[in-house]
């Protein structure tokens, strides 16, 4: 079942690539159909999901792959991966619907995104480090082609920068994985095994070095300050759907690595370096928000708010390492908040990037100063953008509030000094409202004149993302019931 979910899009991608006679319309709708089918399968998976016993995965599948290094095709889901798998499928479906109007080589476009979907799903269900790494790198390759092939502006440079930077990060990650392999007895790349008997316990130097390599790799992908500078150009020059996938799904690969690999496999080193992680998180929160405040390019602004939002996650997972008996509950809350934030940010920022794509599609610019009074010609667009902005600034009744409330309360309870991070939501509020005011209100002027309002495809791709965010914000229990056991389990693992 799980393998089917992962490889169905890949099979469709191969079929699309191998059928050159296929008309563009069929290619576009094939993508939508496959993405919808995959999402349906995941819904079935979710309905049948029960929290697996500690140390195990639900729907696990295992087959020999590279027996020489004890690496196997091992996949499965738990409370961390299932929500991300579902979120990934939702984002790709939204992108498929949005891309129904794609005119530039739609067949290759659809095939590439279907390939990326398989890669993304594969990463979140991987239970083997080599498998994880393969998907991690393939995602970089796929996104390179998306930006270079369908981007705009200085796309060659941005794509290359994105590729080299994140690829370099992935090499650090590989070094870390090899370190784990070498230190484990018996040598293995199997994640549950490495989690059950963490290597490098009692070896602070080696543990620290391996953690440093893994953290570097994940921090580049997340991205955390100061490894974030590939993100703004990549987003600015990527097509709208590329940005949505990049921000919505690919960034989560970094943060997912924290809770899946770094924390449970290197608990001692994580505890030792918890304050460093917290510092990076807090700096990312404040720095990302402030730099976003200074941007006038909508896409760059949203890209920097992603740095800010990822900072909350880094902060929360860092706090989880401050082990003390009386804060276990609080730290569990923080980690649950971090995973909620991964889902929430995917939905909200995915929607915002798709909305930003509408700006470029109609007016060819992202600069807020080129617009004014846009709410008059494009009321639906204005309403959706305003909703997205309020969701992103963490307004209650949206998923961002559920995530950030948990992160803040958990973090503050475990480490009061992290209260400075709450300033982040104030700055993001100011920057989004400023952008709203500049673009949408006042007299209709500049690029706003003659702006066509949202089309059906755009409405039906962006609307559901925001609706899901509202649903999670108002009724968070179905999601939190899945996340919370895993979050408290990982906090327990950190005590070792």
């Amino acid at each position, binding site marked *: 079942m799980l393998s089917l979910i992962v490889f169905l899009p890949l099979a469709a991608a191969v079929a699309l690539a191998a059928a050159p006679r296929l008309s563009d319309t069929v290619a576009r709708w094939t993508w939508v159909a496959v993405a919808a089918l995959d999402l349906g399968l995941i819904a079935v998976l979710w309905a049948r999901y029960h929290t697996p016993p500690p140390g195990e995965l639900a729907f696990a599948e295992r087959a020999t792959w590279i027996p020489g290094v004890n690496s196997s095709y091992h996949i499965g889901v738990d409370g961390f991966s299932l929500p991300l798998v579902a979120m990934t499928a939702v984002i790709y479906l939204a992108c498929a619907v949005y891309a129904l109007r794609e005119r530039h080589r739609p067949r290759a476009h659809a095939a590439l995104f279907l390939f990326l979907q398989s890669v993304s799903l594969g990463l979140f269900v991987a239970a083997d480090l080599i498998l994880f790494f393969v998907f991690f790198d393939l995602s970089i390759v796929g996104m390179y082609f998306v930006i270079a092939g369908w981007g705009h502006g200085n796309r060659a440079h941005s794509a290359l*920068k994105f590729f080299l930077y994140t690829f370099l990060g992935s090499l650090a990650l590989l070094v870390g994985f090899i370190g784990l392999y070498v230190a484990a007895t018996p040598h293995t790349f199997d994640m549950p095994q490495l989690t059950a008997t963490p290597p490098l316990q009692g070896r602070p130097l080696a543990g620290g070095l391996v953690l440093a390599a893994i953290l570097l790799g994940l921090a580049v992908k997340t991205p955390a300050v100061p490894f974030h*500078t590939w993100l703004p150009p990549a987003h600015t020059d990527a097509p709208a759907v590329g940005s949505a996938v990049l921000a919505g799904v690919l960034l989560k690969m970094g943060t997912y690595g924290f809770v899946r690999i770094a924390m449970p496999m290197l608990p001692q080193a994580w505890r030792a370096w918890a304050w460093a992680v917290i510092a990076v998180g807090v700096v990312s929160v404040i720095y990302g928000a402030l730099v976003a405040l*200074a941007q006038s390019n909508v896409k760059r602004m949203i890209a920097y708010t992603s740095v800010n939002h990822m900072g909350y996650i880094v902060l929360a997972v860092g706090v989880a390492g401050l082990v003390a008996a009386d804060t276990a*509950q609080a730290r569990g809350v923080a980690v*649950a908040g971090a995973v909620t934030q991964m889902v929430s940010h995917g939905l909200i920022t995915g929607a915002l990037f798709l909305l930003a794509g509408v700006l470029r599609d109609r007016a060819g610019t992202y600069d807020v100063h080129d617009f004014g009074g846009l709410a008059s010609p494009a009321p639906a667009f204005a309403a959706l953008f305003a909703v997205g902005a309020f969701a992103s600034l963490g307004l209650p009744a949206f998923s961002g509030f559920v995530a950030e409330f948990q992160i803040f309360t958990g973090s503050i309870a475990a480490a009061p000094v992290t209260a400075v991070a709450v300033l982040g939501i104030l700055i993001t509020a100011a920057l989004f*409202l400023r952008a709203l005011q500049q673009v949408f209100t006042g007299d209709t002027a500049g690029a706003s004149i003659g702006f066509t309002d949202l089309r059906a495809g755009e409405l039906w791709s962006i609307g559901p993302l925001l609706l899901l965010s509202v649903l999670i914000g108002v009724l968070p229990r179905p999601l939190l019931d899945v996340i919370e056991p895993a979050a408290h389990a990982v906090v327990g693992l950190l005590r070792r």
Partner: protein
Amino acid sequence: MSQFAQAALWSLVALPAAAGALLATIRRAERVAAPVSLTVAAASVVASAVVAVARPSVAVPFMAAVDFALTVDGLAALLALMLTVVTLLVLAAAAGEIRRSRARFHGLMLLFAASAALTVTAATLPTLLFAWEIMGAASYALIGFGWRDADRVSAGLTAFVTTRAADLGLYVAAGAALAGGAGLALADLPHSSPGWRHVIAAGILVAALGKAAQLPFSFWLSRAMAGPSPVSALLHSAAMVAMGGYLLLRVQPLLVATGWAAPLAMWAGALTALLLGTVAVAQRDIKQLLAASTCAQLGFVVMAAGTGAVAGGAAQLIAHAATKALLFLAAGAWLTALGTTRLADLHGVVGRWRLVGWSAAAGALALAGIPPLSLWATKDAVLARVLEQSPWLYAVGLAASALSAAYAGKLLVVIWRPLPPSGRRNVDAHRDHPGAGQVRFLQQAPLVVLAVGAAYAGLLALPPAGAMVARAVGQPGMFHATPVELAVSGALALAVVLLVARRPPPEPKWALRWLGLEAAAQTLVVRPTLRCAQALARFDDQVLDRGIELAAARSLRLAQHAGRTDDRGLDAAVDRVAAAARRLGRLARRPQTGQLHQYYLQAIVVFVVAVVVLIVWG
């Protein structure tokens, strides 16, 4: 019954929320907007009456092991009733006043009403924060209702960002409550561990002062007057601002438990009542005057929370809500009729629209604290308790009451006295404005109801109802009627109003500009933050990003250098070795002539050389 009451409690929040969301999002709802919203508001009144009697509690699991919980106690029952009734009246008045984008207006107002109802009934911190911030967002959207005017949206931004800055206190308080060990239920907060209790109290205090537009946050309320008058009537007098005071009344035991928070709240309220009272006296615009007076009147509620007079504070909230909603609606009616909110242009309006005028006059008299109207009694219920604790603070409070008599008197004089000839031209300029000169029936009827409330709500603070209210809010036996003080403050109010009628009060510049609070916030917070953001953005582009690009460029140059070394060094050396080998080969071919005598000669030469070598080394 209990299930019915619980359903009523849920519907108190869910019904306006759902209706509001639908109205705000569905297009072509213009026609049905007003009837739908009035129906929902009326149903909410019924629901609030049901819950006020049955006092139900409901809870569902939410997050961080805390419930999304609603409960109705005596205080919440009183406030919920007040809230729903004022909402209904304001919406009825707005149905006459708001002619464009009705669906959006009523949708947002209902969303706001839902969040306010949730605030009143919230039993846990996450629930409270949930409602609290949605109120702020609804306020943003309603202040910026006329979004074609960038200035109005900017006013909404100021209001939202300022109140959210204060709201951060609630986030910190929630974290502290989680650490404090007693849980996140509002009622349990006083039992948190002592260290964390201070943090919780500080966070809640900041959030409440921000929402109640107390010092130093007051300036956002001045900007908020850019919104339509019905918005001001509901949000900026009866509901949202009032929720700041309400929250402090609700957590009054927590304030007391910390030792310092209660006195701090008392002084914050007293200073706001005094200084913003002065600001109100100096205003030349009716909405600005009313806004400043809202801050000042809420100051008495905050004082009540600090001093422990929960019943008096609740009565003051209710009386103020009726009075101020009335006055804002009257201001709105005059604005549609005359196109102005300048006090100078409102001379003698009582004579032109009698029903509105007399209602407003009753409201202004109540605001002045003239006996036997409402605010006279409620304010005194608070001040009587203050006197028991600190005579100095009582003096400040009394001065603040005198100021409220002054600004209400100023308003009263303006609307009562006919227009001086110099101002007539301004008003005439608005005569051609569509709808000018009319005040619709729907705008008038709610004013009368509110005027009755403004007149009689004071009964809540007088025997025998006062004792009942005290019992309802959980402070039985805390009610004392104090005839002497009542007489003193009544006489004072009367004297000040008469004085103002004879001589117009001074309008100092600093008070007219709201103490320069907004300018100070701009200079001290906003501009430095923006500059810092610009500097960091430059740093990001020119240092961090440039550094990465430089590193990449260096790597490229290093690679080119290595390539050159490869070409010119290694490869050239290999080429040279090959050339030398070729030359050697050519040399080696030379002796191969094929002629026998030359081979003999070569053999002899080799033999001689060998002999010589052997002799020399031998």
